[in-house]
C-alpha cells in the first residue's frame, strides 16, 4: 500500500479542504448576504471595492481553488458511483477536468486583473475611491 496513493490523498484533501471551506464560505456569506443590504447591495462598486484589497484577493482566490477542487472531486466520486460504461465515464471525467481547470484559471485571472476604476464608466457605478472623471 503506497502512502501517496491518489485516492488516499483525495480522501485527506476532502477533509482538510472541507474544514477550511466552512470558515471561508461562512465568512463569504456573512459579508455578501448578511451585512448591510445583503444580496441587494452587491454591485460592481461593492465587488471592485472588495477586490482592491489584497486580503480579499487572497481570500477569494483560496476560496475559488478549494471550492472548485473539493466540488469537482466530489463529482468524480459521484460519477464513479453511478456511471459504468467506460466511454461515458471517460467523457464525463474529461469534461470535469476541462471545466474545473477553465473556471480556476478564469476566476484567478478575474480576481488579480480586475480594474476597480475602468476608464469611461459612469462614476456612480464605481467604488467611491475612484478619481472623478
Amino acid at each position, binding site marked *: 500500500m503506497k502512502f501517496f496513493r491518489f485516492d488516499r490523498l483525495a480522501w485527506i484533501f476532502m*477533509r482538510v479542504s*472541507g*474544514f477550511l*471551506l*466552512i470558515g471561508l*464560505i*461562512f465568512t463569504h*456569506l456573512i459579508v455578501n*448576504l*448578511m451585512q448591510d*443590504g*445583503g*444580496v*441587494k447591495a*452587491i*454591485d*460592481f*462598486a461593492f*465587488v*471592485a471595492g472588495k477586490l482592491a484589497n489584497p486580503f480579499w484577493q487572497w481570500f477569494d482566490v483560496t476560496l*475559488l481553488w478549494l*471550492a*472548485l477542487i473539493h*466540488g*469537482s472531486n*466530489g*463529482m468524480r466520486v*459521484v460519477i464513479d458511483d453511478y456511471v459504468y460504461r467506460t466511454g461515458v465515464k471517460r467523457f464525463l471525467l474529461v469534461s470535469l477536468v476541462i*471545466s474545473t481547470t477553465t*473556471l480556476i484559471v*478564469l*476566476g484567478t*485571472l*478575474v480576481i488579480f*486583473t*480586475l480594474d476597480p476604476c*475602468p476608464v469611461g*464608466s*459612469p462614476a456612480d*457605478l*464605481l467604488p467611491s475611491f475612484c478619481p472623478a472623471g
Partner: protein
Amino acid sequence: MSIKTPSKPKTVFRGTLYRGHEGMWSWVLHRITGIAIYFFLLVHVLDTATVRLDPELYNAVMASYKTPIMGLGEAALVAAIVFHAFNGLRIILVDMTAWASRHHRTLFYGVLVLWAVVMIAFLPRHLMHVFGG
C-alpha cells in the same frame, strides 16, 4: 385462474444496519446538497467573471439575483451549504474518533439542530433584504 403468480419479495427495512436510518439519510442529503452546490458554483464563477468585462453588465447580471424567486433560491442554497458544512464536520469526527462513530446518530441530530439554529438566524434577515422593508 388458480395458478398463483409468485409475489414479489417485500423489502423489509427494519433490522438492517444502514438502510432507512440516520446514516443513510445523512449520506443521501450530503450527496444531494453537494451536487446542488457544485452546479451553483459553476454558474457563480461565470456570473462573477462578468465583473471583469463591464460594470453595467455585471450590475445587470446581479439584478437577476435580486428577484423574489432567486431570493428563495439563495435561501435554499444557504440551507444546502449549512447542512453540508455541519454534516461534513460530523463525517470528519466519525472518521477520526471512536467516540463519534459510536454516537454518529446523536451527532446527526446535532447537525440538524445546528442547521436549524443557523437558518433561524439567517432567514429573517435575508428574506427582509429580498422582499424589502
